[in-house]
Every structure is written in structure tokens, then in C-alpha cells.
């Protein structure tokens, strides 16, 4: 038990930056470059943590608290996730609601921190972030509702646990639709192409990155770390959903499959980013509403 907790927490704490490394590496390969080392994200974090920081005179404690609260929220939501089909550390009826709302809390404070700077660019980014997120939220919920119905449980550990196999056998189409919707939501939530471009530095077009323009030093490290952890979380859900249909195997085998799947998820994200262009901002809500419609359809399939 304790051991399992230890493994889970360490995985949650250590793996995320690697995922970012994979994504970047894949993108570099597609662009014909060699790209940064896989562990570059870790180096960046370490460097930032060692640095000082510059604070705008406009800012207040909200600006300083934002990154810490954001990271805490993402970390705690990580505790709710069953990694690789194992029971999560914290699991109860309706825990996925807490997960979604924790992510919302992080977003809320990130947006406030952005507004705290008084910069019009950051205000713009914050506006886009909260707007798109509020449209993505129901889509995410619908995916979870589909999962809940398919597996007959209301906790993440149940939804993404052993029951998933039976669910795939019974209602594969619904789960497939939900999975696609979930992937779309994951892209949006993690500020990935086609919703947002983490690499661009043209402020007018950005969403997430522009919100954190003024953060520096350890605060920026917390933000980047949190972002990678969020990517990890979504990856974990998508991968577990995809792998859930496989026949049960031993714990170690399942764990290995899960890790491999995570790597694959990062690679797919990288590929998507490389082959797609960023959508026009006005198209983003359409895409997210589309995800909602897909998952509603999936729910109808299950309830009819």
C-alpha cells in the first residue's frame, strides 16, 4: 500500500517533464532538426528555480500566489487519478468532479495572476483561457459521464479501472467517441495546437503562454512544471481509456504498457502539433462544442 503510494506519487512528480521532452523531440524530428535533449525540461526547471525574479510594480500577492496554487491544484488532482489501472490514492464517488474543479481553480488563479499585471496582452490571454475552458468543461464532464455510465461507477478509479474491459466489450462505439472527445479536450486544456501554440511568441495569438509573460524565476518554474503535470494527467486518462480494452495482464506488464502508452500519447501530441495548423480563435469554441456533441452522442448510445 505504502509502496504503491510511493510509486504513484513519484511517477506523478517525476514523469511529467519527460512527456514535454518527448513532445518537443517529436516536433523537432518532424521539422528536420535534432531538437533538445529529452530531459531539457528538467534542466530548465532546475535553472529557473535557482534564479531570482522580477516583479512588476503593479502586481500584488495574487500574482505571487497564482503559480503555487496552480501547481498545488494540479498535483492534488493527480492524486485522484489511477495511474495504469491501479486504484488511485484518493478515490471516492464523484471524485472526477473534484479533479475538474481543481483544474479550474488553477486556471482561475493563473488568470487572476495575469490580470494582476495590468497588461493588456495578459488580460487578453486570460480572457481566452477562461472562455475556452468554460466551453471545454462540459465536454470533459460529458466524457466522464459516458465513462461512468459505461463502467457503472462514479469514481475515477472505477471508471479507469478493471471495469473498463467489460465496458469496451459492451459499448465500444460510445467509448471510442468519448475517447476522441477527451483527446480534443486534452489538447485544448494543455494549450496545444490546434487550439494554442506553446512555441509561438507572437503575443496577440497566444492563450496560455501569454498569461505567464511576467512570471520569472521559481514562479515560472512552478508554472511550467504544473503545465507538464497537467499534460501528464490528461495523457494518463486518455491512455488508460485506450488501454482499458486490453485483456487483463499482470501488474508489472500493465504498468509497462501504461508507461509506453504515455510515451505514445506524447508522440501523438507531437505529431498532431507538427502536421496541423493552429485554428483561428473563433473556430476553437466550435471544436470544443463539437467534442461536447460527440460525447453527448456517446451518452445517448449508452442510455437509449
Amino acid at each position, binding site marked *: 500500500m505504502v509502496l504503491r503510494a510511493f510509486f504513484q506519487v513519484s511517477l506523478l512528480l517525476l514523469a511529467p517533464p519527460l512527456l514535454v521532452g518527448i513532445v518537443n523531440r517529436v516536433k523537432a524530428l518532424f521539422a528536420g532538426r535534432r531538437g533538445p535533449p529529452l530531459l531539457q525540461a528538467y534542466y530548465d526547471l532546475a535553472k529557473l528555480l535557482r534564479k531570482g525574479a522580477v516583479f512588476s510594480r503593479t502586481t500584488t500577492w495574487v500574482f505571487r500566489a497564482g503559480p*503555487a496554487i496552480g501547481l498545488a491544484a494540479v498535483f492534488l488532482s493527480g492524486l485522484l487519478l489511477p495511474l495504469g489501472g491501479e486504484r488511485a490514492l484518493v478515490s471516492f464517488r464523484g471524485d472526477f468532479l473534484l479533479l475538474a474543479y481543481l483544474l479550474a481553480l488553477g486556471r482561475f488563479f493563473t488568470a487572476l495572476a495575469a490580470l494582476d499585471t495590468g497588461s493588456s496582452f495578459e*488580460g487578453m490571454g486570460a480572457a481566452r483561457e477562461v472562455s475556452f475552458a468554460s466551453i471545454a468543461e462540459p465536454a470533459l464532464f460529458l466524457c466522464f459521464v459516458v465513462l461512468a455510465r459505461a463502467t457503472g461507477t462514479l469514481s475515477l478509479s472505477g471508471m479507469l479501472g478493471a471495469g473498463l474491459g467489460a465496458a469496451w466489450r459492451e459499448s465500444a462505439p460510445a467509448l471510442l467517441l468519448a475517447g476522441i472527445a477527451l483527446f480534443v479536450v486534452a489538447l485544448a486544456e494543455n494549450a496545444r495546437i490546434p487550439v494554442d501554440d506553446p512555441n509561438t511568441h507572437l503575443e496577440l495569438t497566444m492563450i496560455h503562454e501569454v498569461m505567464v509573460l511576467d512570471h520569472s524565476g521559481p514562479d515560472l518554474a512552478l508554472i511550467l512544471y504544473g503545465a507538464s503535470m497537467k499534460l501528464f494527467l490528461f495523457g494518463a486518462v486518455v491512455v488508460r481509456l485506450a488501454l482499458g480494452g486490453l485483456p487483463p495482464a499482470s501488474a508489472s506488464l500493465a504498468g509497462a504498457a501504461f508507461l509506453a502508452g504515455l510515451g505514445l500519447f506524447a508522440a501523438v501530441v507531437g505529431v498532431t502539433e507538427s502536421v496541423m495548423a493552429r485554428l483561428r480563435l473563433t473556430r476553437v469554441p466550435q471544436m470544443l462544442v463539437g467534442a461536447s456533441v460527440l460525447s453527448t452522442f456517446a451518452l445517448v448510445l449508452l442510455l437509449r
Partner: protein
Amino acid sequence: MTAGLALSAVALATSSGLFGLLLRRRPALGQRLTCAAMCVAAVLGAGASARVLWGSGGFAIRLPWHEPLASLALRLDPLSALFLVPILAVPALGSIYGLSYWPQAELGWKAVRLQLFFGLVTGAMALVLLADNALLFLVGWEVMAVAGFALVRGDDERPEALRASWVYLAAAHVGAFALLALFSIVGGARGSFDFAEWKGLPAAGGASLYALALVGFGLKAGLVPLHFWLPGAHAAAPSHVSAVMSGVLLKTGIYGLLRTLGFFDAPPASWGLVLLALGAISGVLGVGVALAQHDLKRLLAYHSVENIGIIAMGAGIALVGRSRGDAALVALGLAGGLLHVVNHALFKSLLFLGAGSVQHAAGTRDLEHLGGLARAMPFTSFFFLVGAAAISGLPPLNGFASEWLIAVGSLTGLDLPRGDRVAYVALAAPVLAFIGGLAAACFAKVHGTAFLGNARSSKASRAHESPAPMIFPMAVLAAACLAIGLGPSLLLPALARVSSDWAGLPASQTLAASAVGSAGWVGGMAAALLLAAGLLALGRTRLLRGRATPPGETWGCGYSAPSARMEYTGSSFAQILVEGFRWVLLPRVELSHPRGLFPRSARFRTDVPDVVLDRAIEPAVQACETAARGLRGLAPGRIHFYAVLVLAALVALLCWRFLWW
């Protein structure tokens, strides 16, 4: 004992304003005594409620009264006990706030009058809860409406307050007529107006009664599209009055609806689904319209519509549960709805008091003229932020706890077998998530534009922190928000008691044991979140200690002289989402694009009138007045016409009697 506590609380609250009236020579003392009376009343009322919710049970009193009523029946059962706590506590905090916000020493008679009606409205709300007789209920209901009317007009010079208060009174009265019809029909059928005799009404054929209840109580609660009176009234009233009106007065509508629905035996599932749908519509549209507002208090008022919608969703789920005999649905839906009643009372009052503080300090509540208040008003800013996070349903605060209960309740519907359409109540969860997301966006806008960044007007830059009597109630409310967020499981037994009492289901069944455990986890996670965030914040502070943290300008992407005029405005912030709600908001957009190579000016501003009031009711009323005027114009003032009317009436009645009858 319980009866003594409750009744003395009501009497004390009702008469509290008399201190200020009698001690007009010593206004400060008079107001303090008034305030003390309200606070003592709140404590007494809380004691009574606690005895009912956790202790021995309630009381019922019946005294003879005059003719049409026959009895003066009062009782305190778990449902009314639960409502009684916020209904006495919020006005008490409001009266503390009023010590600085509406001081009798400065305002004189105006303050005396406000305090009189403040006490009266509190007493009337309590009477509504305690009444065990339909007509007594109506008396409390109307006194509450009229006293509320007087309160909204606290500032009777401003035309908007006059208009808003009148719209409020008219709406309240029309709503009361619906209730009058409802009570008259039921009372006639039952042969008594005592609620005690109304138990077990057959639901068959009761759809029209349900419709009357929805109109009458929905109008008070502010369910879309009956919310039209609410934004104006809440915005125009003095802020501690807004806190009471928005925080607790609306809840009497919910209370009345629940009380009435409690009489029916096994209402059909469609009733619950209707309520759920109305709640969902109110929730989404309420927050959607709120997003487009830039008057801080109007915005908050629309959020009341949203939250009433959430509460109605909970009640709808509970109602569906009753029709199915599903104890878990009832317990979770009602517990969530009722917890949200309490929560909304807390955070909405907190927000209105914060808004009042802002108005007090900056002299305006137009978001486009605020900004940067956090530095001048650290306490207000912090407590407002707590309220904002709470109303957005974010953990670790109380809003999440209740929304979570409602969502879990709706998802319990997924356990129903395939093909049962009632299972679609599960869609309530995504709707709640959508509402929550929009609310978070809206409050990011509110807090961001009002308190953060730079001041957008000179008024805002001269703001100052409010005095302690205004801060203290906010602190209490914020602490309560956090406490409920951390320990929702402690309240669940009481909520379970209320719901079992309401639904007439045995208590052991009603709340699935797992819900209490899960609620414990919710509280635990909230505490863990606080801890983790605290540790991280501490860590980063440690890291930065001793390092260079030079202050600088905000990064303007190369532009070196940013000013407040370049800040993102509230209108712009909400623009993406407001676009999405355009079809229902029908906003008045003021937009001039920049033109030419060297554009001189550009402007973007949206104004959102209330769709129902300004686009439907107002024109309809105007049309009716015009029509009535036209009809009146047809009647000439000549005496011959008068005589002809008499003649015509005679001939018509003769024909009726002898030819047609």
C-alpha cells in the same frame, strides 16, 4: 424551549429598528442597540435551529385566530430550521455592516427608516419560515415584499432605485396572487388552511397547482424568465440590503416551493424534470447575462439567478427521486440544493458587502472605472476573492461542496436501467460544469478588473480601505465559506435529516453512506489543497529570500509606457463568451472600428439590458398603456354618452334576461 428561542428571535429581529427610532437623540447608540438586537436574534435563531437539526426535533404551536384564518399556527421543522439560520444570520451581519455603511449619526431619519424595515423584513422572512398556515404564510410573504420595497428605496432620490423598487413590488404582488390562487384552491379542497392538514395531496391533476407554485415562488426566487425584477432591485438597494435580498430573501421562494412540493404525494417525474430544466436554464442564462454586465452589483444580481438555478436543479433532482422512490436521488439532490442555499447566502452576501465596500471607497460600481483596488483595499480584495472563488464552485470552498453533491446526485441517475429517460438527469452534471466554468470566467473578470491591475479612473485610484465594521462581517462570511468547504461532511447528517423529513422517507436509507464518506474526502482534499499551496508558496518565498527581486514595469511587449487605458476592460474580457450568448442577451453594442492609417479613436462597449424586462415586459406594459389610453380616448366626456351608457346597459340587460337567458 425551542419555540421560545425561535419566537423571541423573530420578535427581537422584527422590533430591532425601534431602538434606532426611539433613540434618535443618540443615533450612534440607537444603531448599535439595533445591531445588537439583530445579532442576538441571529444567535437565538441559530440555537433553535440547531436544536431542531441536531437535537430533539421541532415544535408546533396553534392558537385561535380570526375568521378567515381560524388559527395562528407556527412550527419549526427541519426544513424551516435549515433556512432559519442564514435568514437570521445574514441580516445580523448586514446590520453590523450598516454601522459604518449606513450610519444613523449621519443619515438620520433615512437610516432609522432603513433599520425599521430591515428588522421588519427579517422578521417577515422568519415568519414565512415558521408559518404553518397558508394565510399566515401569505401575510409574512407580503410584509416581506413591502418591507423589501421600502428597503430598495433606501436612497429615494435616484430614479433607478424608484423604478427598480416599483418593478420589484409589482412583481412580488403579482406573484403573491398566484400563491393566493394556489392556497385558495388547496385550502378549499382540504377545508383548512393549516399546512398540517395539507399533507398527502394527490399529485394527479395537480399540474395546474404546480404551475401556480412555480409562478408564485419562481417569481420570488428569480427563476428565468421570472427573474426580471431582480437585477434592478438588487443593484439599486444599499449594499447590505442587497446582501440580504440576494443572499436570503430569494431563498424564501425556494423554501416555499419545497414546502408546497412536500405536500404532494409522489409527484410525477415530469415535475422534477421541469424544475431541473428551469434550473438549468436559469443557471446558464443567469451567468451568461452576468458575464455581459459591467455594473458590479447588477452582475452579482444575475449570479443570484444562476445560483437559484443551481438550487432548483438540486430540488428538481430530489423531486425526480421522490417520484421514483429513490432515496439516494432525493438525499443527494436536496442536500446539495439546501447546502447551496446556505452557501449562496454566505458567499453572495459576502460579495455584495464587498461590492458595497468598493462603492463606498471608489464611489462607483462600474467595472470599467475600477481597477487596482487590491493595494488600497487589501482586506476587501481578499475577502471578495474568497467569495468569488466560492461562487465559482472552486475547492476548497463551500460552493464546490454543494455543487458536488448536486452533480453526484444527478449522476446517481445513471444507475437507472437502460431505456429509462429519467436517466438523462445525469446531464445536469455537465450543465453544472458549464455554469461553474462560466462563473469562474465571470469572476476572474470581476476580481481582475475591479481589484487587480491599475486604476482605470481617478476615483478608483483614491480608494481607501473600509472601516472595521464593514470588514468584520466579510471576514465572518469568508471564514464560514472556508469552514463549510473543509467540513461538508459535518453538515450532511443535518441535511439528511431535512431531506428525509421532507420526502417522508426513513432517515437510514436516505443518504447513501458513501456520500458522507465521499464528502469527508472532499473536505480532506480541500484541506490538503490548502496545505500544498501553502507549502509551495512558502517554498518559493524561501527560495527567493536573499535573491534579487527587482521591481519593474509590466512587460508590455516592448512598449515601455503602459497606462491604465491600455488595460483589458471587462467588456473585452467577456467578449468571447458574450458573443456566444448573443442570441439571448440581445446586447446593445457600441462599436467604432479604428479607421485609416492613423486611426484617431476606436471604441467598444456592450450594454446588456434585461431581455425579459426591457425587451418584453416593458414594451408590453407600454403597449397596454397605449391601448388603455386609446380605449379611454373613445369615451367622450359628454353627458349624453353617460346617459347612453345607462340606457344601453338597461337594454342589454333586458335583452339578456328576456331574449337570451
